[in-house]
């Protein structure tokens, strides 16, 4: 870990990706994530990498698909409306079992929506963003430090499980600056290791049978088999890779569940509520897929109720209900359209649940 520097979340992702050996970025400008593209356009040419401003989000994700087919660490980034356009590509990446990093710095929707922070792509990302039966790894950073750290994690998990991985942030995370210890630069080391899967299409050199990167199975029994195999991998992922943070949960009677910017607002509200003697804590999911179901189920045995704080109409709220089997009430404090609940609003919601 290096000395702390001050960076925007978007920039931290870009620099961290480079330090992980990502040398190929394909993207298209859209607020509030454009700093990633701008940063890459500055850095990539100086380190022999590729920055390509694609003609569309669709082209960008397909360039990532092509690059990932060759076994390289490739990435793209966008914000909600642009990520809709990437859905097709994400489905193909998943269908061809290709790892790749997709960053979604969310803004309000649906449609053109707004440009202010949102978490309203939660369902879209966690349920398999595109046609067909698939999932992608979804990580939810809540600090600029996590934006950097989770970039590496996303690459590594994606490669380990051979599936696309996403950093799902809200606009605030992308735009804010905080001190960050960037990961050590192991880019060159990674590249020199020649790491690329034994499945990659790098040219046969006339020494092996041809590799095919493909998601087409015209025989239904084969497609079924491929789907089932993929879901066995997902099961392993769900078992081994759930990540979450517990905050003041030891004696908590109310469990706040929140991610990203709202988890930070909630932290302030929890501190205020504790000063009033309310026993409240928080479980902050770090992986949204796989969702930390067990941690929540365990908490359900102890607490009186849950309170989700989110920037959507209650998408994660449903996951908490599913994870806990509705064993305890799951209330919600939410704002949408780019609005963010204030500490006072969250505190009021906590007080209400404490009654």
């Amino acid at each position, binding site marked *: 870990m290096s000395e702390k520097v*001050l960076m925007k979340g978007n920039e931290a992702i870009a620099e961290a990706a480079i330090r992980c050996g990502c040398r190929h970025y394909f993207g298209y400008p859209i*607020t509030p994530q454009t700093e990633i593209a701008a940063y890459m356009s500055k850095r990539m040419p100086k380190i022999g990498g590729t920055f390509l401003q694609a003609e569309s989000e669709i082209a960008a994700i397909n360039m990532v698909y092509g690059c990932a087919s060759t076994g390289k660490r490739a990435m793209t980034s966008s914000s909600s409306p642009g990520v809709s356009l990437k859905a097709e590509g994400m489905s193909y990446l998943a269908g061809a079992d290709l790892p790749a990093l997709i960053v979604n710095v969310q803004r309000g929707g649906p449609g053109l929506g707004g440009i202010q922070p949102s978490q309203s792509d939660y369902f879209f990302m966690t349920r398999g963003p595109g046609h067909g039966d698939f999932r992608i790894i979804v990580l939810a950073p809540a600090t600029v430090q996590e934006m950097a750290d989770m970039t590496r994690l996303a690459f590594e998990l994606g490669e380990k499980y051979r599936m696309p991985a996403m950093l799902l942030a809200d606009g605030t995370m992308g735009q804010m600056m905080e001190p960050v210890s960037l990961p050590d630069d192991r880019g060159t080391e990674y590249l020199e290791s020649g790491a690329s899967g034994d499945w990659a299409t790098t040219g046969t050199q006339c020494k092996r049978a041809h590799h095919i990167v493909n998601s087409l199975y015209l025989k239904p029994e084969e497609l079924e088999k491929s789907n089932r195999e993929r879901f066995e991998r997902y099961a392993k992922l769900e078992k081994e890779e759930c990540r979450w943070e517990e905050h003041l949960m030891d004696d908590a009677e109310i469990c706040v569940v929140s991610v990203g910017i709202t988890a930070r*607002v909630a932290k302030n509200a929890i501190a205020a509520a504790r000063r009033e003697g309310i026993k409240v804590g928080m479980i902050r999911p770090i992986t949204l897929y796989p969702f930390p179901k067990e941690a929540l189920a365990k908490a359900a045995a102890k607490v009186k109720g849950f309170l989700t704080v989110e920037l959507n109409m209650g998408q994660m709220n449903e996951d908490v209900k599913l994870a806990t089997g509705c064993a305890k009430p799951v209330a919600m404090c939410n704002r949408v359209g780019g609005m963010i609940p*204030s*500490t006072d609003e969250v505190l009021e919601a906590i007080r209400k649940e404490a009654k």
Partner: protein
Amino acid sequence: MTYECIMAGFGGQGLLFSGKVLAHAALIEGKELSWLPSYGPEMRGGTCNCSVIVSDEPVGSPIIAHPNILMAMNEPSLDKFEAAAAAGAEVFVDSSLIARKVRRDDVCATYVPATEMAKEMEATSLANMILLGAIVKKTGCVKCETVAEALKQTISARKAGLLELNLKAVGRGFDFMNQDK
């Protein structure tokens, strides 16, 4: 101590930059901090603000509901954030641009004719740095000497020639607060 500072005004007044300098100064001092801009299409002329938190504790929410430091560079911003300010807040008003006085009596107002002062320096665009100097001097949210170092680190290569002028502007802010006593 936690300083929750909102700098607000028109786009183009350098509000994000003065916030950045303050954030950098906090970084140099090893403090916890966050810097959050209002973002959007209002690059020039629209309303614009940034929130900087400087603290000895890890920063929770980077969103400031009740600033204890407010820097206002136009009247709409003063209208908006004066009401939200915490009791006892330090409110810095660019009195060259805002005619009215601060209405609340539970906050501490400082009137700095920053834009006039900047004009005298033939650097109208540095009113933000004069105000930053005043804020740092009066509140002690970071040390005065750290601001100079932060400026050196923050100023872009393209504008490196303006470093001296920026430092001078911050110095005017310090001096103004000395006279004010």
